[in-house]
Each structure stands twice: as structure tokens, then as C-alpha cells.
């Protein structure tokens, strides 16, 4: 399977964020999930579940607290997708 380019991952993450958010949002890499995009702790977990499904990865819950911005999410997903392909 070809490895998704980082642009594709970014797009996929934005798409998930927009789906999970119940208000219209325009995420950027600098957006903070809570302060800027209005996610609560429940929705952060929902985002994780959706990302796992879309990218076929497993995101360790221990890493979640470090995930503050959309950029962090994209980097984390990219890392996990990378590992899945090299595993």
C-alpha cells in the first residue's frame, strides 16, 4: 500500500476534526483543540477513534495529553502511519 503523503494526512485530520466538531470550524496546524476549536475531553477521544479508523492505526491513550494542537495530531498520526508501513 502506498504511504499517504503528509499532505494527505493533514487533509484527513482536518476532515475528521470538522466531522467531529458540532460547530463550523476552520482548523489550521496551530489551532489548539480545546481553546480554538472548542473540543471537550469527550470529543478529543472521539477524534482519536475516528483517526484510528481512517488511518488504520492505534493511538496510545498515554500520548493524548501531549496532543494540544492540530500540528501535534498530524505529526503523531504521520509517525504511527510510518511505523505501520515499516513494521
Amino acid at each position: 500500500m502506498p504511504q499517504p503523503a503528509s499532505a494527505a494526512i493533514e487533509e484527513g485530520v482536518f476532515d475528521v476534526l470538522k466531522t467531529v466538531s458540532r460547530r463550523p470550524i476552520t482548523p489550521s496546524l496551530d489551532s489548539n483543540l480545546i481553546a480554538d476549536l472548542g473540543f471537550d475531553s469527550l470529543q478529543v477521544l472521539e477524534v482519536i477513534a475516528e483517526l484510528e479508523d481512517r488511518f488504520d492505526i492505534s493511538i496510545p491513550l498515554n500520548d493524548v495529553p501531549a496532543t494540544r494542537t492540530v500540528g501535534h495530531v498530524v505529526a503523531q498520526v504521520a509517525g504511527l502511519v510510518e511505523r505501520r508501513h515499516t513494521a
Partner: protein
Amino acid sequence: MPTPRTMPEALEEAARTSAGFTFVSGRAESFVSYAELRCRAVQVAGSLRDAGLRRGDLVAIVLADAEEFLATLFGASMAGVIPASLYPPATTSDLPRYLELTSAILRSSGARAVITTDALVPEFERVRARCPELALVLAHASLRAACADPIDLPKIDDIAFVQYTSGSTSSPKGVALSHANVSANVHAFTGPACVGASNADVAVSWLPLNHDMGLVGMVFGALYSGCACVLLPPHAFVKRPSEWLSAITRHRGTLSFAPNFAYDLCVRRVKDRDMVGLDLSSWRVAGCGAEPIHPPTLAAFAQKFAPVGFRKTSYLPSYGLAEHVLAASFAACGRAPRTEEVSADALTERRIAIPHKGEGLSVALVSCGKALPDHQIRIAGEDGRPLPERHVGEILLAGPSVMLGYYKRDALTAQTVRDGWLHTGDLGYLSDGELFVCGRAKDVIIVHGRKYHPQDLEWAVNGLAGVRRGRVVAFGATNHGRPDRVVIVAEPNGTVVPDTLTDAIRRRIGDLFGLYVDAVALVPSGTVGRTTSGKVQRAATKARYERGELVADGVKA
């Protein structure tokens, strides 16, 4: 009514059956019989005695793992000490603030020991300096004394446990319940007049155990009835709501309770492919409570899951609160929820529930049923006198489930429990003897079944640069049919750009409570009034906000 039992007596009895807990973790499941849990609890009890803890000492439990939490809770009880459950940290992102919150509770409760995970031991060691009475910080894993039998069993009127429902800072509030309280409530709601639980039942729950519905409703409900209890970690449910329904399917679950938001999450997030293989036909009691119940949510859930065997007659709407152990009223079992559509204007303006006749706005309310056997409900007007049916007033409760009091808070207890009546702060009315809950008189904010005290949010914001100290008000704006909207009104001191300050406020509340602030209103100096005793005028500020006099930032829910 069965003979009242203490928690150790109930465990003792359950340990004679073959039933127990199934702890679900990812794809793995482990079975721990009530007899095995009892053995583990005895070890904890022995260790606590060895550590020098004695009858009447308060021990704070900060453990997220269900098995560890339960062994510690029962172990402490067997050792004659008073267990107190505290929220474990939600994330590690803002541990210093979490510890600040928690140490306020430890200080005010005079806790002698904290029992927590290996990882948190050094953190709690550091707060000991701020908590003079805190003598010991113990790792749960180290409590493994060789011990044959419990040493100092509690009596029926002793404190069973103290529940700190949310992190409170300026004035922590711990609900102290006696073993008699707990026993009366559990026997009443599991009894034949309500759930009718037997050893053939299987309880399935993902609810946190530091929440009354999780601990008393599911775990004690099962254990006191000697039936099986399947527990999932709360985050597993929130991440994938279908895990809850799969567990019910796998274990042929019969009893499962959850707040309204959980049913809503299932409607929105369980996908078609997750429906494959579900079978909810065994689920005979689907309890719903802990936050306002919305009829459209229940209807949508029933419709979505009817094809996999869910029956709307399984719904059991209920009303209750931690100060009353858990439940105060339950709807009749085996009946579809009874709803009433009433005029919204008459309800809020005239405080009367009048059936809606197609003019103006309406509110749909669900019956939470009648008082538990041997318990009483009264609706009181502002003068404290009982109101007739269909008149809205404060819900008062009396009977054997009314708490002993707030731990070490006698004045607050005296305000809350008067002449044997617990003043709940919730508003409701009776119709044909059934309770309809329609609002709150107290300042609690409820989001996703969890209660937040405005004082806590205000305290968190007060610590921020750019905010005038003591000029912050937090409240929940009522949002019909949805969770409360969380609103913060603050006076800036001009040292921080408004947008940055708004962000910082959201971030702080998000980090500390996992809560999103729907609206931040930065207002001119002097807007947030204070009472003569120096308290912020929360109700007055909220009223001004709801009249549109205070402008919030651009984010709309």
C-alpha cells in the same frame, strides 16, 4: 425490607456466591470473583492497620483502575477507616493544578493517607508539606500484608465513605454516607418495587467509580444482589460507544445505567458496521439519570437499536443525587417513559406545569417516577411550604437515604438538611405522584452527567494573568434540550490582549476540567458585583447575561 448491611457484610455475603466482576480492558477480560476481591481487600485492610491507620481516620483514594479502586475501598472499610473517593487526574497535562485542587480537599478533610498509583506517589509526597495532617502516601501495589481476617469492622451507623463529587477548592464538599444510608438505598432500588435484581442478572457498566451512579448504582447494586458485574473503563466507552453495547451483547447484560449523554453518543457515533452482531434483547433495565433526560434522545436511541433487540420498555428514568446515596425516584419498570409536553412560559414565569396547547414554546419532560419505598418526596415553595401537584418548587427528600452530612462541614450540612429534609437545589413538580425535574435552584453546572461547581471554575480563572482577581463569575446558562452552556464572565485588568485572555481562559478550563467554555464575556470593571460578605453575585450576573446585557466573544454554540 432486608436487614441493613455494612459494605464489608455485603461483600462477605457476595463472596459466598460464585459471582464476581469481569474487568474488560481492550480485547482482554479478566474475571475476579467477589471472594477474590474480598481476599484482596483483606490484604489492603491489614496493610492500612500495619501503617498505623485507625478507626475514624480518613483515607483518600486516587485510583482510576476499577479493580484497584474497589479492593482499596472495601479494604479501608474493613480496617475501620473512612475511605474517600477523589477524582484521579483526567490527563497529565496540568498535574500541578490538579494537585493544587486535590490538596485543598486533602487539607479540608484532614485526610491521614492517600492511596494512589506508583506513578502518582512522588507527586503526592510533594503536596504533603501543604497538608499537615497527611501522614502517609501509599502505593496501592504495596498494600499486600499477609492477613487472615478483617480487624476492625465498621458498624451500620459509621461513615461508609465520603464522596468528593468534584474538585472543590475554596470550599470542598464531601458527601458522607453511613452504611445504613447505602444499604437502604441499594435495597430500595434493587428491590422488587424497582429494578427487582436477582442473582440471575448481569450488570454492565463503563461509569467511573468515583461517581455515585457507577459505584452505588452499578457495582453496589450488583454486589448487594449477588449478581455478575462487568466493568469497562470509562474512556473505552467515550472513545468507542459501541464497546458498551458489545459488552452487553457478549455478557447477555440485563442491567445497565447511564446518563442521557451516553445514549446520545450511541445514537450519533455507533456506525452501521458496529451494529453487526449486536443483540440487546437481554437488556431489561436501561437506567437513565444523573442529568436532565431528553425525550428525543431516548426516542432516537430506541429507534436506532430496536432492530438489534432493544425495547423502549427497558428504559428506567430516575432522579437522584450523591447526597441521597444515589436514587430518589425510579419510574415504573417495564413501562415506556412517560413524557409530558408543557408550556415553557408557564413553567418559567408562573412556575406551573400546564399541558402545551400549540401556542408558544414547549418543553418535553420525562417522568422520573415515584419515591423509592420508605422514602418521601416533597415539592416546596420559596417559603418552604409544600406545593400542590403541577406547581414547580424545590425538590426535598426525606428517608433513610439522606446523607449523614457534608464531611466536617456542619454549617453547610445544617443548611442543606433541615428537619430531616434534604434540600436538593433541583426544581421539579409532581404529577399523579410522579416526579418531573425541570431545573436547578443551586449553581451547579452539569455537562455530560458530571457536576462542576462554579467556584472551581472561578478559582481557576482567577489565577490567570490579565484577570482582575475576585471579579470572575462562572455559571451554566440553561440550554433547553442540550447540556448547559458554560459561561465565564471576567473583568480584565488590561495587561493582556482580550483575544489572548479569552484563549487563556478556555485553555485553563479545558486543561483542568476537560470542559469547553461556550462563551467568555470580558466586561468593564465594576460589572461583576459583590455581596456585602465579599462573594461574587453569580445569580445577578447570570441574569444580566441571559438578558443579553453582557456581550460574549464571537463563538456561538
